[in-house]
């Protein structure tokens, strides 16, 4: 009888240990994914640069050789130029990156998704983008004075049709 009781007690201990492991590891120990006193800038957009080499009008010979339904006003090269993106925070360049176009023929849009951690508080944030064949300077530049709260997710996107960078 005593042996049976000891057996049941032993089983209770094993079951308790089993559920204790489950209960603990299902949400503990806590993990600090992001420092609570900092904020995060996410720079993310997808944008196609200008065609490399530019477009030209087809010659008369080319027009003659092309079926009527396939004729185009402009012949453009498929390949796009890489984008140059720059992010400046409080006068310091935190990111400067050349973004190659996607696709096997390099004719797709360039994409970026970057995370930049900052101390929470006021910051001057300036984003610049070059999407043309120019050698110097940028085609778009937008800036904002923002006070980032701790744990804030500050998103910077880009829409050329809306004038450039968008700060969320």
């Amino acid at each position: 009888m005593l042996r049976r009781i000891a057996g049941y007690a032993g089983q209770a201990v094993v079951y308790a240990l089993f559920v204790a492991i489950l209960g603990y590891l299902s949400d503990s120990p806590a993990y600090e994914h992001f420092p609570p006193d900092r904020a995060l800038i996410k720079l993310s957009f997808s944008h196609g640069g200008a065609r490399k080499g530019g477009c030209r009008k087809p010659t008369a010979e080319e027009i003659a050789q092309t079926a009527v339904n396939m004729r185009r006003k402009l012949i453009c090269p498929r390949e796009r130029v890489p984008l140059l993106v720059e992010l400046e925070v409080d006068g310091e360049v935190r990111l400067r990156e050349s973004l190659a176009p996607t696709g096997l023929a390099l004719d797709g849009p360039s994409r970026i998704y970057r995370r930049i951690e900052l101390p929470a508080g006021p910051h001057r944030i300036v984003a610049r983008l070059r999407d043309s064949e120019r050698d110097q300077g940028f085609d778009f530049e937008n800036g904002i004075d923002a006070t980032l709260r701790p744990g804030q997710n500050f998103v910077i996107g880009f829409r050329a049709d809306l004038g450039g960078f968008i700060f969320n």
Partner: protein
Amino acid sequence: MDFIRRPLRHVFLLSEAVLDKVFGPAWNPLYHLGALGFFHYWIVAVTGIYVYVFFETSVSEAYLSVEAITHEQWYLGGVMRSLHRYASDALVLMMAVHILREFAMDRYRGARWFTWFTGVPILWLVTISGVTGYWLVWDMLAQYVAVTTSEWLDSLPIFGELIAGNFLTPDSLDSRFFTLMVFLHIAVPLILLLVLWIHLQRVSRPKINPPRGLAVGTFIAMLALALVKPALSQGPADLASVPTVLGIDWFYLPVYPLLDVMSGQSLWALVLIASLILAVLPWMPPMRRRPAAEVHLDNCNGCARCVEDCPFNALSLVPRTDGAPFSHEAKVDPKLCISCGICAGACPTSMPFRRATPLVAGIELPDLTMATLRDRVDTATAALQGDARVLVFGCDYGAPVRGLAGPGTAVISLPCIAMLPPAYIDYALSKSRADGVVLAGCREGGCNARFGQRWTEARLAGTRDPHLRARVPRRRLLVAPAGPADRRKLAAEVAAFAARLTSLPAEEPPAPPARLAAAVDATKEA
């Protein structure tokens, strides 16, 4: 690989011994890890169906609906949610221990490679099922899981658009994403069930249900956990903020924190290489296999006993090929055979009394034939001295029996205790070669060939062919299951058995079979 396996094996043997005492061999959880995994899968499935009834698949409603389930009907919905969480965690725990134990016991190489290999995709499918489940709750942890998973997937150069772009701002997330997640969270576990079925294809009579007592105990423990520590959400997801400190589920998300210290592509390489190593482990190095069992058609009548007893489906019955007047014959698939010899032990032609013709059984291990085994019994028992002569049959994977040998004790080790046909016990005792026989197979429930102990006990009890003859005095037979760590225990049992034998009266010579006696009487009368 042995330097890792050996200490791990020691830990498992010790744990098994402790749990044997606490639960008894029949309920020892370590002998039912796969079945417990299935048990938790079904708990997850049933509780998941209940929770899904009340779940809303939209960005704005997902969190609120889970909160309602958790708090407004805590007595049922909340418990169901908690059971769903904890059973899925338990499934991972069972899988992890199951993998470690099979590795430690070297039960993943040779013919068992297929079961091990098909277990690797199960790890992935279970993880994906868990990750999609956490995603659906749409709390801070879900946000972390969603964003981190997306960023990790985006690190692969295979997606046209950035998946993480869906989680940039609160406005960028679409409810259709939740519909996709619900679909994945249901479809992946169903695929998992299919892969589990494939996983068990080469296992005969797989245990997919734990013993009722163990199942009840486990369920009550989980229920208690669900009531004491209910699974809770960690605040609503807010894409305008970054989750800072999280209580993450370490069963499902242990690699996620690594993404904070290494690139997504590096982590992909790490987990893929780890999976690859796990998948090819059965060949690192390959097992040196004993020759597979062979069928001798001259002595096989297609009775199917070997087919019934094979633990790994290596035997099948096929139409007769030699013109003998039987419909079928046994056929061995050498790729599936682990050379345990259980088939030879089941063959009714494994009869050591046969002297007129050479002893060749219908099915045998080429490197340990029944004739060789009879010779070993003859040789071993011929040297025995004293009035308590004991013949011990051991198992190569159980307690080592070689150390037990002495003037009064002879030992023979077999690939599996069920390789021993019961007729050999009769042979040793009825011809007075020994005063007692000990069968020391693996520890009950821990048999290397899965069914060694079970079939042996059934044969001795007369509930499974071939039976041990009724004329064999059971008091001169000791069944003493002993694992590799039970050497001392076995030695003590054998010594006690030998002491008992000295006090037994001499056995009457076995009576001739009834038909033979009647024939003799009839001859005398004539």
